[in-house]
């Protein structure tokens, strides 16, 4: 068997393990699905009148607008949950056993990220289904839905890279769990939940440069309108930026972990 095939099997096995682990523990799945769903329902019902504000983009309903926000929240929390699970593995000594196995180190991180990507995919499908059940239309049809799914899945993997880096660096589940509020802060100061033009300062200015705004717009555009090449490109670039940041941080954290044991 070639080295590539062996590595692919390792990544697949570790990815499947992390998915099973998440679905077995309600405290890991709840943040990914339950909280964003509750918030989606409440924000749609509570702030739905916002579509009548001057300057609000033309949408079929506030739910249609908010689906991208819910997906963003879900993928961010999937990345955070992946980091927590990796930190638990480090605390329990499971990662040490993997380090001593004849497998490349990157496969260990990639396996965890594969699991995070699968959770991102699950989140995207979940919220698409919720949107369709409650009457939201995907304006650009199946291609638009597929584009949104791909962007959400890859963004979950990218964000998971940063979660993995923090887990590797600190080796503490409680530290990674403590980032949960930070995840919400970063998301609130993006255009995930509201049009950037209608936000209040300083959130409005910060949202203009927040990479999550670009991803949110890339996911939202095919749902409320047609696929926009520029929006998609910006979203892909933002995801790539987060991937590079996650790779650099993970590589450094991995070296640190191997040095300190």
């Amino acid at each position: 068997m070639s080295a590539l095939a062996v590595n692919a099997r390792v990544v697949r096995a570790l990815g499947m393990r992390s998915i099973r682990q998440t679905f077995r523990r309600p405290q890991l799945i709840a943040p990914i699905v339950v909280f964003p769903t509750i918030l989606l329902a409440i924000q749609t019902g509570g702030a739905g009148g916002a579509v009548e504000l001057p300057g609000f983009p033309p949408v079929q309903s506030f739910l249609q607008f908010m689906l991208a926000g819910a997906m963003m929240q879900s993928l961010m929390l999937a990345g955070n949950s992946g980091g927590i699970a990796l930190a638990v593995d480090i605390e329990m000594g499971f990662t040490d056993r993997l380090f001593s196995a004849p497998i490349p180190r990157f496969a260990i991180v990639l396996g965890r990220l594969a699991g995070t990507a699968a959770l991102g995919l699950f989140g995207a499908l979940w919220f698409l289904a919720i949107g369709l059940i409650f009457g939201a239309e995907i304006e650009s049809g199946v291609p638009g839905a597929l584009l949104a799914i791909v962007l959400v899945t890859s963004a979950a993997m990218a964000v998971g890279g940063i979660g993995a880096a923090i887990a590797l660096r600190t080796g503490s589940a409680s530290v990674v769990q403590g980032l949960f509020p930070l995840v919400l802060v970063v998301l609130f100061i993006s255009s995930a939940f509201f049009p950037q033009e209608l936000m209040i300062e300083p959130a409005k200015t910060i949202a203009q440069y927040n990479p999550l705004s670009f991803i949110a717009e890339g996911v939202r555009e095919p749902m409320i309108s047609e696929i926009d090449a520029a929006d998609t490109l910006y979203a892909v670039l933002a995801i790539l930026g987060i991937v590079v940041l996650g790779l650099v941080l993970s590589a450094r954290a991995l070296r640190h972990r191997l040095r300190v044991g």
Partner: protein
Amino acid sequence: MEAALAIPAWRANLATIGALMARAKNELIRVPGAAIPGVLAPTIFFLGLNGVFGALTQLNGFSTGSYESFIVPVSMLQGAGFTGAAAGVNLARDIEQGWLDRLLVSPAPRWVLLMGTVLAASARALIPASFVLAIALALGAGWPGLDGLAVTFFMVAAMAAVAACWGSFLALRFKSQSAAPLMQAGMMALILTTTAYAPLALLQGWLQDIARVNPVTDVIEAARQGFVGGVTWADTWPGLLALAGLLAVLGTLALREMRRTGR
């Protein structure tokens, strides 16, 4: 001699409640980091919701032009919800570690053990509420007046007691910290399916229906009145009644589970 040393039951019960509250206070002093999520979460919600949905006050039907003033009592009550739920998580931890078993073999009545947890949560809830209020006032929220402030803080403390009863009920039922998401999600749903984001008339149909029957709507309106206008008895008593009802129902459930535990 024995008669001279005998302590009246009510004094012994008070001392036990005081000791349990002191334990919760010590936990706060010794592990200050444990209080940070309870303070941070409502603050983040306040800042986030204000930054994101602040423009909603441009819609006809808002009783104030300041979304800070409109949303700050919601964030204070959210802090109470998080703190009360955290009391449930702590109780679940005590069950897992065997601490509650030791309390159960003591001569203290079960309701006293529950009361200690609930009152400690009420007192702790004043910390995030004060923090959120300070931030809100600094950002321009209206001063609610001393009477408005007193009503709001009373609502916060009582709401924390409601959340602590809910958290304790689940902790005693499931005997595991894994029930934490249910404790938090339950309180979040109860507090936010109200007029939290917008006045009743501006809510979407289904949420409007739920908010009408959700007793916490009256609690939020009572806590909010000082921030968006004046304090009146007509806006206060429905909130008090709602809290009394919630405490009666959830307190009974929690007490029933406490009595069943270990038997």
